[in-house]
């Protein structure tokens, strides 16, 4: 029963336990429940990845209604990779969460928090697993609505406005997607992605399909914060509770990118997307601008969470750049970076959570000399930061390596220079923090703080460990990503 229903269980288990979490209320049981479920989801995801790797793409007809009639869950290598990283980040963040949540969120709200967290996880996993365009919209909304709530629970009032801004932009994005899906349905009569892929070539020379493509792309771009539609992101990441920043930054935009991949390659097909619609050129320009501008803006931020948020916008640029090449190497690079960036950003935001727990601030000038007091936390930041820059032996280097070689393969060497230039900007903004924490004298009036508790350090170090492992041996990840990319490029031939 377990193995054949694995795909469904992946999404349904967190879904069913979300209400349970609500009922458990403010006690620690809610946390325990969320923790167990997160690890369960990670376990299922691991099984799923191995299953997909051994016997190929998993298709699951929900309610036993075969594909175009019913809703299909379809997990190929790319989807499995996304599911795995979401589940892994989820498990890490939940292991970390208790102390941070006790500190940042009022006790009476903690039950709601854990419930919303599980709902968000459900939504994200659902998006990655589904093979149905409308079902994707539904799960997108689950994840979005719950992340609005999660963000609004931040400690300052600006969290509320950030969540509101996100809600407005997110809903516009979702509505755009809905319009696009509606047009697709109108022209083909189906909502199933594989079926769409088969039926679209007959009608893809119509204005309706072109507009549908544009609307889906814009809608998803809002969700994944593609420059210049990223305006919601910096505030949302800055003012959300630390745990939420870590979780959302590592997963939500990644899922957006996955959705984009699905639509570009599986649904519309590489020819329509990149040859007929020229989306590659447009995305490439936007990605490069995102990389450079957002990195530059990040340099001038004094709030470190905000800095990391802008850095995320820039890193999304890297991923999109890889995708915009529309080559196997490019998509592989995009997916590798997607995975790696999730690990890196999650660790960095967890690190911010540690600092906020002890210091009550993540402003740059409050961090002076912090490395002496919180050496383990700051070590996480340094390694994570180096990874963001792309220093060898960290996972960030692997991403950059694949990305630059993909760009060079496509004969676009000026882009390679720009990519590396953007990583220099990363060096500067990470360097500012490191310089403050390690090489500046602490403010004499500042209070002494202790190192964060082990329960918060271990998850961050696990992420860093994974990061370093990938930096040393990326063959497994690269293999999976390559396999996923080939399936995507090959228009979904399993």
């Amino acid at each position, binding site marked *: 029963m377990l193995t054949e229903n694995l795909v469904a269980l992946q999404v349904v288990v967190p879904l069913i336990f979300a209400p349970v979490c609500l009922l458990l209320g403010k006690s620690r049981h809610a946390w325990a429940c969320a923790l167990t479920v997160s690890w369960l989801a990670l376990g299922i995801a691991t099984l799923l990845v191995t299953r997909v790797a051994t016997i190929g793409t998993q298709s699951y007809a929900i309610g036993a209604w075969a594909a175009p009639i019913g809703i299909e869950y379809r997990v190929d290598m790319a989807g499995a990779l996304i599911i795995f990283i979401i589940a892994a980040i989820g498990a890490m963040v939940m292991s970390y969460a208790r102390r941070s949540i006790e500190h940042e969120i009022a006790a009476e709200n903690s039950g709601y928090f854990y419930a919303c967290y599980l709902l968000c996880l459900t939504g994200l996993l659902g998006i990655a697993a589904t093979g149905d365009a409308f079902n994707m919209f539904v799960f997108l909304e689950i994840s979005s609505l719950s992340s609005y709530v999660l963000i609004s629970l931040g400690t300052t009032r600006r969290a509320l406005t950030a969540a509101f801004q996100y809600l407005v932009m997110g809903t516009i994005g979702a509505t755009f997607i809905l319009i696009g899906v509606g047009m697709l349905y109108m022209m083909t009569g189906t909502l199933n992605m594989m079926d769409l892929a088969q039926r679209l070539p007959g009608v893809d020379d119509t204005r309706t399909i072109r507009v549908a493509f544009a609307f889906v792309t814009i809608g998803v771009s809002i969700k994944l914060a593609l420059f210049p539609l990223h305006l919601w992101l910096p505030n949302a990441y800055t003012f959300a509770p630390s745990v939420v920043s870590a979780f959302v930054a590592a997963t939500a935009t990644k899922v957006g990118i996955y959705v984009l991949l699905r639509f570009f390659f599986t649904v519309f097909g590489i020819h329509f997307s990149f040859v007929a619609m020229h989306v590659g050129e447009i995305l490439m320009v936007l990605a490069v601008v995102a990389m450079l501008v957002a990195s530059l803006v990040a340099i001038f931020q004094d709030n470190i969470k905000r800095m990391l948020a802008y850095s995320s916008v820039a890193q999304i640029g890297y991923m999109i750049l890889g995708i915009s090449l529309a080559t196997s190497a490019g998509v592989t690079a995009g997916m590798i970076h997607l995975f790696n960036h999730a690990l890196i950003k999650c660790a960095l935001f967890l690190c911010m959570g540690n600092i906020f727990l002890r210091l009550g601030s993540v402003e740059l000038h409050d961090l002076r000399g912090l490395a002496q007091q919180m050496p383990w936390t700051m070590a996480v930041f340094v390694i994570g930061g180096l990874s963001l820059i792309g220093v060898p032996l960290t996972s960030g280097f692997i991403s950059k390596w694949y990305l630059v070689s993909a760009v060079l393969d496509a004969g676009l060497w000026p882009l*390679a220079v720009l990519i590396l230039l953007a990583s220099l900007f990363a060096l500067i903004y990470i360097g500012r923090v490191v310089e403050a924490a390690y090489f500046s004298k602490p403010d004499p009036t500042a209070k002494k703080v202790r190192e964060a508790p082990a329960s918060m350090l271990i998850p961050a170090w696990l992420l860093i460990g994974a990061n370093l492992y990938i930096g040393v041996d990326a063959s497994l990840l690269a293999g999976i990503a390559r396999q996923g990319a080939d399936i995507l490029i090959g228009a979904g031939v399993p």
Partner: protein
Amino acid sequence: MSAATTLLTCVAVPMVMPALIAALHRRPNAREAVSLLGSGCLFLMVFSLLDDVRQGSLPAIDLVSPVPGIKIGFAVEPLGLMFALLASFLWFVTTVYSIGYMRHHHEKRQTSFYCYFAIALGSVMGIAFAGNLFTLFIFYELLTLSTYPLVTHAGNTAARRAGRMYLGHLIGTSVILLLLALIWTWSLTGTLDFRAGGILEGTVTPGIASVLLVLFVFGIGKTAVMPFHLWLPAAMVAPTPVSALLHAVAVVKAGVFTLLKVSIYIFGIDFLGQIPATQWLMYVAAATIVLAALFALRQDNLKLRLAWSTISQLSYIVLCALMVSPLGIIGGSVHIVMHAFAKITLFFCAGAILVTTQKTRVSEMTGIGRRMPWTMAAFTIGALSMIGLPPAAGFISKWYMLLGAIEVSQWVAVIAISVSTLLNAAYFLPVVYIAFFHAPPDAPDRVDINEVKEAPMMILLALGITAVGTVALFFLSDLPMALASQLVGGSR
């Protein structure tokens, strides 16, 4: 212990030493004993590899492969061994020196100083024994990062500014240019292994090879070829042992070493000759030689003057690496050693003067030779070697360089070397002259100005060793010459 294991140990020992050093941070004596012991052991281990290499066997070991076609692995070859021998030997000497310097100069945070120093040396070993360009690149970056805390050791605003300059130049060039070149090479050839005769020949057009060469030469920012040279003077805010070992020997030599490796094993000397950019880059190097020497002339701060001199001298080696001449390669390789001994002596002397008299400016050093005769004698030897006069080691390398340049009729190089020799004399001899033949000023501290008040014993010991080494290498140049010849012989 097999040669491969020794190889690994050589890289690993300095990397694990910080743990020991940090553990002993409350007991300075034990801490420094560990440092000394470690550096000594390292030298002996590197030395033990010499036999293998001389017999022509080149032990190698591969560890992991992060990206298909790319390995992290180590291998020994003559040039690397020469560099490793040099660095490990001078590390030992510098450790001796550091103990004297750091204690007498009352530096803070000595433990972290020794830790980062050890890591930096480990990185140098990694560079020296890197089995492929990728491994080399990793340790190259690691070296930059581990020396950054040493540059900013003082912790004040000036040091932090210098640190930014340092990181900005070195990481900037290496990430944008070198990494690009690396990935490009990899995507063209599918490998980054060092191979005799190069890997690029036959796979790329001279046009692309030109671009690659430019990327490599400027990307290896540690060679301090203009216009990416400003980091080196900036790094002089670091404590003197750092300037001495790292910024006269380890870091900058890692740069030119990398360049030599690239030109020998990635391009191949023969292929290099077919690349149009080579000639232009040689002009850049020649210009750097002359211009940096002119800048050195204008510096009053002794350490800065030495730094500019280093920039100038490094470009000799860059010039040799691009000269497409076996004699030039020999000259360049040997110059790594010769210049290292001389320059470290000079820096040791500058540090000794600083510790003893708190003076940093050349114009203040009038008559200092009477007070610190041993120190200034060593300084003189170093200066002679810099200029390239016998009986100092610098003569030998310069001789081969000139021969090489003449062999391939690179007259610009010949002129640059000759002019810079004159300039070297012009900026070093006045120091010697002032120190020995100028009357000292009225001593404010009422000590007898003619009384000999030398630097601490440990410092003297260290600079004595290197000064003697500078002279000795003139007479005993067989070992480096043999290794260098083996290098050229191997590439033919």
